[in-house]
């Protein structure tokens, strides 16, 4: 019985985990390049808005494909939006937390403002269908695993999986990844080896914008019927938590994203699970945040994050 519930939870947990993982990977690119990105939440909101709006507009023209165009639009919007963060914190040496905060405030205002202009209401119009769940033929016949990972799953979960592998490869196996990490550890040293720190950091932030935008669009097109101001409801910060909990490593991010996705899902199922039933729902909501604080304390004093993240890089200073 209990096991049955667990299996039932899987598709939902994967649906929650996908945007968390994708956005956290975005944060990974940015922070590994040395730019702290607390604007993940805001970028996700912009991506979610763009994705939902695009889907609504294209639905009559391209039924079936509209959500995928929405996903692309979300990515593009996220990239564009993150350029602001890049410009402020790289070219103008703004404090990265200040600039990130500004983006978070801006996202709420901008998306709802545009909703009012485009749709005359506080949210986008509802789309008739978001992304559709898919069942992978053959693989879904695998006992147990098939039911867990391949039956009635949103395709964005596979996108997230692919991105984890891709991120790992790019960060640890390519020259670009090496340069990115160098800029996050010791930009002056990287610059002395002829690396253009500005350009690499721009790449880091823009990639993070694309991924966070993708995550936002994914979220709204799998978990919602329209974009509202609460569509993203703190998932960007959970992604930030996953990044820290996963020690700035793609595989760690994957694990943390799964874990937080499950803890959200548990809040729906807790009442059916005897030993969890007495716990208030709020415990499951709070879990990711409290665990992140605990993790930070446990990691304290160990080398975990990119050393130069958050530091302002000034070419003139060595």
């Amino acid at each position, binding site marked *: 019985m209990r096991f049955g519930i667990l299996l039932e939870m899987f598709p939902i947990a994967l649906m929650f985990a996908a945007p968390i993982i994708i956005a956290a990977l975005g944060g990974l690119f940015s*922070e590994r390049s040395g730019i*702290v990105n*607390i604007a993940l939440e805001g970028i996700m909101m912009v991506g979610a808005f763009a994705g939902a709006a695009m889907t609504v507009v294209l639905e009559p023209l391209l039924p079936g494909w509209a959500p995928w165009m929405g996903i692309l639009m979300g990515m593009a919007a996220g990239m564009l939006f993150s350029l*602001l963060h890049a410009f*402020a*914190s790289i*070219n*103008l*040496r*703004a*404090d*990265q*937390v*200040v*600039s990130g*905060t*500004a*983006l*978070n*405030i*801006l996202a*709420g*205002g*901008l998306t*709802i*403002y545009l909703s*009012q*202009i485009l749709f005359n209401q506080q949210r986008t119009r509802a789309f008739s269908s978001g992304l559709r769940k898919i069942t992978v033929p053959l693989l879904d016949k695998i006992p147990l695993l098939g039911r867990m990972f391949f039956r009635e799953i949103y395709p964005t979960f596979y996108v997230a999986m692919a991105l984890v592998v891709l991120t790992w490869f790019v960060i640890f196996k390519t020259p670009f990844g090496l340069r990115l990490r160098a800029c996050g550890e010791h930009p002056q040293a990287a610059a002395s080896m002829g690396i253009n720190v500005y350009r690499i950091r721009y790449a880091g932030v823009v990639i993070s914008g694309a991924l966070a935008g993708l995550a936002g669009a994914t979220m709204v097109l799998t978990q919602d019927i329209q974009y509202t101001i*609460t569509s993203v*409801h*703190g998932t960007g*910060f959970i992604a*930030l938590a996953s990044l*820290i909990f996963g020690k*700035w490593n793609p595989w760690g991010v994957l694990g943390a994203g799964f874990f937080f996705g499950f803890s959200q899902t548990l809040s729906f199922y807790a009442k059916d699970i005897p030993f969890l039933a007495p716990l*208030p729902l*709020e415990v499951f*909501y*709070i879990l990711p*945040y*409290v665990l*992140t*604080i605990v993790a*930070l*304390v446990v*990691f*304290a*004093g*160990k*080398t*975990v*994050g*990119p*050393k130069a*993240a*958050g*530091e*302002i890089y*000034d070419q003139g*200073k060595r």
Partner: protein
Amino acid sequence: MAAKKKDAKATPASAVAPLATPTETSPLEPAVRVANPVGSFDPDAGHAPKVILKRNKVLVPLVAVALGFLVGSIVILITGKSPLLMFNALIQGVTGINIALGGFNPRHIGELVIQAMPIILTGLSVGFAFRTGLFNTGAEGQLMVGALAATAVALTVKAPTIIHVPLILLAGAGAGGIWGAIPGYLKARFNVHEVVVTIMLNYTALHFNNWTILNVFGSVDRVKTAEFPVTALLKDPWLADLTNGSRLNWGFVPVILSLVLYWFIIEKTTFGYGLRAVGFNKDAARYAGMKVKRNVALSMAIAGAFAGLAGAIITIGTFNFGRALSAAEGYGFDGIAVALVGMTQAPGILLAGLLFGMLKSAGPLMQSAGIPKEIGGIIQASIVLFVGMKLGIERIIDIARGKRADRLALAAAENAGEVGV
């Protein structure tokens, strides 16, 4: 390590810093660091003469505000409306006078004050932490637990107003202080970065608040608690009548007291001096024998108390019941904006709080003029972004100020054959 790099460009006092053991700066510093909060010593401007430096400190926020309104106007223009309607709404929000149609309604002034009160307090909260070199992104959560504590005292204690209200305000400030002390302690003891911890604590506070409101105090409709007794309220029919039925209440009294207290602690006490010293350069401060860790923890606690007080004032001033919230209300972000634009100075925070309060209170007026009220958020965010981009703004100011001087210098350089690239 990180400590040394910071020293290299920091105050002259940092010359002594390398002597101090850099144990405080753990490698996990990563996440985010405010080496240079607005309003503190500015190492980047070291080349500029002192007078210009001071003038820029006031000019940067002013230019940022002007540019913010410019961006807002452009956004309104692009979306096919008239920015004049926005400015009309803003003027009406501040003075109560409707220029376009005529008429005067003091209710708008009352609503402006109502909107400004909590964000002045969260501005003080963020500003206080800034002064110690800490970034308090957790004013939102501290405000929520303050509101929760206020609800508890309002519902459970029976006392005459003269005792009940101060007790509620103290409870709010105390609860906010404790909530703020958590990241402060973690920062001091484990060097865990306060930005991440406070963000996580915001959401923890949100859900903790909701659970307590709904399960401990019982909710009428899954949204709010029963109404408070009259003795618990800051509301006053006289103030409401004076402003034609606005929600204005006595909450502005503790707000003003807080502003004075903030100024006094920071500028006039040894304790405040110690806090600022830690903000300037914590290695130098430690070398001078100051208790850096204690100051860091205390600073966050006091910052939290200001935000907690805001929560209490909202709860018994604007409302008369405890509330479960579906999402954060943005007071914490507003506080960051207020503190940055106010340059972490008490008078600046007051003005910035009124400015952003104006943007909020004029929202419904703009909405009825056909301009989505979210333009306020867009302008506010742009202002924060521009304050953050202070290097760019300084360049603009320099250009505007020194255009002629620059041209002369350029000509001289060209004559000397130095500009050939």
